[in-house]
């Protein structure tokens, strides 16, 4: 009975009143040995793989990476010029400037064992400048946002979780909507889309920046299916996430900038 009362007390203090966050944050180190051990076989495997690769293979990979880097650098140079031009034009319209969002690289070190929860553990915490609500990206698109920040670790909710929603717009024509997770890694749903909205299969959905949580312009998903049922008030639009939600190991955390990024 004592234990039940204590548990209920803890639950209320934690869930209803959020009193225990500092305690949870300071007991973060409990995770260190567990994740060290869980990730040990994978890291050993990687190490062995690295050390037995031949010199030629490494040189080849190096050359390929250098070539890719050069291409990306050239593209970035053009992007800088274009951003400057866009900002000049936006100034003419009295709109705010587009700012570059600095990013930090982090690693996914754990996946929440609850199969109904799409949540990952990231090896950056408050001491690395992570903050609650920070957007998490991989190299191809938006992955989710940080929901709890510990001292050394933080937990991030993926866009595919059933409780997650992100404001997006169609890249082609700017139609706005809200993309919600369905608890499935490969499917998101664009909700409350009017039957007459011009959305087609293959349309790219990017963050709209509305709501102020996600910076505008990051790719989120590609429309995979549009269904117009005249008996329904809204069109049924499903989309596939761009980010590789179940394969990525390295993620990017978007740093906070002083002004609201991209909003106008």
């Amino acid at each position, binding site marked *: 009975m*004592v*234990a*039940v009362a*204590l*548990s*209920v*007390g*803890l*639950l209320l*203090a*934690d*869930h209803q009143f959020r009193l*225990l966050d500092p305690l*949870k944050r300071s*007991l973060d180190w*409990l*995770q260190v*040995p*567990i*994740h060290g*051990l*869980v990730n040990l076989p994978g890291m050993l495997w990687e190490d062995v793989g690295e050390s037995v690769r031949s010199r030629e293979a490494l040189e080849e990979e190096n050359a390929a990476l250098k070539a890719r880097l050069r291409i990306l650098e050239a593209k970035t140079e053009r992007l800088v010029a274009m951003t400057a031009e866009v900002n000049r034009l936006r100034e003419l319209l009295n709109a705010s400037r587009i700012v570059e969002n600095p990013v930090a690289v982090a690693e996914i070190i*754990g*996946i*929440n*064992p*609850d*199969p*109904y*929860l799409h*949540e990952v*553990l990231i090896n950056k915490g408050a001491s690395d400048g992570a903050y609650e609500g920070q957007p998490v990206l991989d190299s191809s698109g938006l992955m989710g946002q940080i929901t*709890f920040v510990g001292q050394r670790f933080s*937990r991030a909710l993926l866009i595919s979780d*059933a*409780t997650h929603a992100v404001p997006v717009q169609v890249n082609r024509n700017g139609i706005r909507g809200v993309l919600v997770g369905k*608890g499935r890694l490969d499917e998101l749903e664009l909700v409350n889309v009017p039957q007459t909205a011009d959305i087609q299969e293959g349309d790219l959905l990017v963050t709209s920046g509305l709501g102020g949580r996600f910076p505008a312009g990051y790719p989120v998903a590609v429309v995979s299916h549009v269904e117009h049922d005249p008996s329904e008030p809204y069109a049924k639009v499903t989309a596939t996430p761009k980010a590789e939600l*179940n394969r990525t190991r390295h993620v990017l955390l978007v740093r906070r900038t002083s002004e609201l990024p991209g909003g106008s």
Partner: protein
Amino acid sequence: MISGHGLLLLLASLFVGWVTAWIPLHGLAAFVRPDLVALSLIYWSWRHPERFGVLTAWWVGVISDLVLGSWLGVHALAYALMIYFFLNIHHRFRIYPMLQQSVLIFLLVGIAIMVIHWINQLTGVAARDLMFMLGAIGSALCWPFVRYTLDYLGGKTV
């Protein structure tokens, strides 16, 4: 009091449980994943009911909550209730053959999983099906393994 060896074994069994909880699995395996923390708790209160009881289970549950990132108190409540029910039947459990023990383990871990599920429902994360109950089957299948390993390592006399 518990000996140094016993304490080490207890902590090791719980640690292995938490590590297994975080091993990435997907598909059906993620649902069947046995709850080794619950199994070691049952083991220890079966072999030494005078030392490990509801409060031990509660504390271990609190640490589980911290480790797994669930709301504080979820696993604490589930494990405390599970061990409470277990201690009510532990005399019978002692004389049961392995198969019947496993059936009881299924029920006990099932109760713990149900409690966790109810609290998750109250706090917003609802399961869409009953697949989560497979964890109780996984745990029941693992019971003989846990029991023999801990016995072999000297869990009977601590």
